[in-house]
């Protein structure tokens, strides 16, 4: 177990190193002098010289990378040039909002995707299986921002049941918080539910033809016990790992969902930063999402290792 953990963590280090190079390299894509871009409309030479010195633009590239990477390791992600706040503080401020949205979306994805996958596999080749596959294709093909519009038109404009936009903190008003997040969570969870459904269906089809399932049936166990206890429990093992890979999709989707429903989270932070040419914030957000993705995948791999007795043996 310890050897596995050490080896798995060791792989993360070079990956994180290359992530940092990619993110640092983004700044080099800026056409012309970054100091000029950061100075915006003001082209005061003293301001430009100050920015060049402050952001070490007068240093060679490897030195600049080294200084930037050392700062990141100390938790210093730079400073927002528009809001004049450390990027770390901005990220920490917006993170709980996106985490809540992503968490609820994951619940939606699991509640829809796993039962749909199980039913589809158990009823393989029937109309129900066909309908579940159509649902998966629908989920994979619908742009989530468009789905958001359709839900707003139905539930906010026509029926007036749910607020069309905005966010209320759970500490402020829990009921209002949930009402504002129902539609965004469904929109975000929908595509992931389709992927989870496909993974679960495929894993269940494989498991249900295994010898131990046939043995369970031969013992006279009810179909419900066979499917849920012997089938689903084993099928869920690969679904955990494959599901973790969808975390990136969740974060990408959050950017668009937060834009549609005007939710002040991580996604809105990066989009606003892009339009404000606040490049340190863009870099900070990409770095945090990539790190979170790597760490969550590590957790999923460890969970996979722990729940699969064959790997522990």
């Amino acid at each position, binding site marked *: 177990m310890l050897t596995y953990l050490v080896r798995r963590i060791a792989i993360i280090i*070079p*990956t994180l190193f*290359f992530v940092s190079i990619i993110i640092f390299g*983004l700044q080099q894509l*800026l056409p012309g002098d970054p100091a000029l871009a950061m100075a915006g409309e003001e082209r005061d030479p003293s301001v430009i010289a100050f920015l060049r010195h402050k952001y070490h633009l007068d240093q060679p590239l490897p030195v600049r990378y080294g200084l930037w990477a050392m700062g990141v390791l100390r938790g210093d992600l730079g400073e927002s040039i528009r809001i004049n706040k450390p990027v770390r503080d901005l990220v920490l401020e917006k993170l709980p909002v996106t985490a809540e949205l992503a968490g609820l979306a994951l619940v939606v994805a699991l509640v829809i995707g796993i039962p749909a996958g199980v039913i589809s596999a158990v009823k393989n080749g029937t109309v129900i299986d066909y309908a579940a596959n159509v649902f998966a294709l629908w989920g994979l*093909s619908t742009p989530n921002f468009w789905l958001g519009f359709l839900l707003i038109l139905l539930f906010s404009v026509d029926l007036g049941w749910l607020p069309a936009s905005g966010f209320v903190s759970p500490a402020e008003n829990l009921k209002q918080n949930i009402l504002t997040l129902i539609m965004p969570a469904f929109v975000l969870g929908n595509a992931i539910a389709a992927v989870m459904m496909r993974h679960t269906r495929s894993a269940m089809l494989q498991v249900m033809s295994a010898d131990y399932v046939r043995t369970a049936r031969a013992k006279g166990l009810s179909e419900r016990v066979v499917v849920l206890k012997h089938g689903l429990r084993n099928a869920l093992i690969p679904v955990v790992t494959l599901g973790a890979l969808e975390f990136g999709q969740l974060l990408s989707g959050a950017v668009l969902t937060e834009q549609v429903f005007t939710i002040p989270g991580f996604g809105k932070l990066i989009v606003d930063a892009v339009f404000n040419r606040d*490049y340190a914030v*863009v870099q900070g957000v990409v770095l945090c999402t990539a790190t979170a993705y790597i760490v969550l995948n590590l957790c999923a791999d460890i969970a996979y290792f722990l729940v699969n007795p064959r790997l522990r043996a």
Partner: protein
Amino acid sequence: MTAIPVDTERAARDLPDDQPWKRALRRLVHRRGAMVGAAVVLFFVLVAIFAPLIAPYAPIATDWGAVRKAPSWAHWLGTDEIGRDVLSRVMFGARASLEAGVVSVLISLSLGIPIGLLSGYVGGLLDGVLMRIVDAMLACPFLILAIALAAFLGPNLTNAMIAIGISAMPAFIRLTRAQTLSTKVEDYVEAAKAVGNPHYRIVLRHILPNILAPIMVQATLAIAAAIIAEASLSFLGLGQQPPDPSWGSMLNTAKNFLSQAPWMAWWPGLAIFVVVLSFNLLGDGLRDALDPRHR
């Protein structure tokens, strides 16, 4: 003794003396979903090509007397906030979306296949370093990386296509590398080495043609993802810039008029959905046709 049932129709379709490509094509033709997908894709390609001839109005022609008009005989899909015909804009928008889908995937393929071939064929330290870089790129969520690239490159359709192409590239590197690793140990590759073929010839003549099938499937599915990504970037204002139409930028405008003019949001969104669904159906069909184990 019971007779073994024989699917004569399938057996006839899979004649052993046929070329694999012909067999795959015949299997693809028999998949209804894939054929519907191909027909719809072809329809949109024709609409995009002939948009200047078939669109009832110019896509940027404004009519201040017909602002936000609901669908009518004069404007079948209604008009937008400055009186532009939504149908004409949807037709011209097909150009941006399909172009973005195809060009981004071509960028991914033209970079991903050579890198994947190199990594898989050479192996060793080079493979290790390249794979860590790919891991790092895959760790940055696809759309977030595309947003960051588009932000630093500058917001326009060309840069959006480059950003999507680069963000989608790691999947092609991984796939090409995996296929190369399994193909390079095949007997015919060993034989090609034994008779003294140079490395470039082994890779280009003996490995590449044999790994193209899964790459084609992935490319078809990636076009669907790239179309959604372009629409997403344009929706955020990082793709096609106004007044030129694209489905994503039309939705970006529509969000401000949802209650007054919902038709502005219906049609471009529906167009994205139908095209992406068609590419997904075609991709699924291709996968089943090229790799019968998936059936």
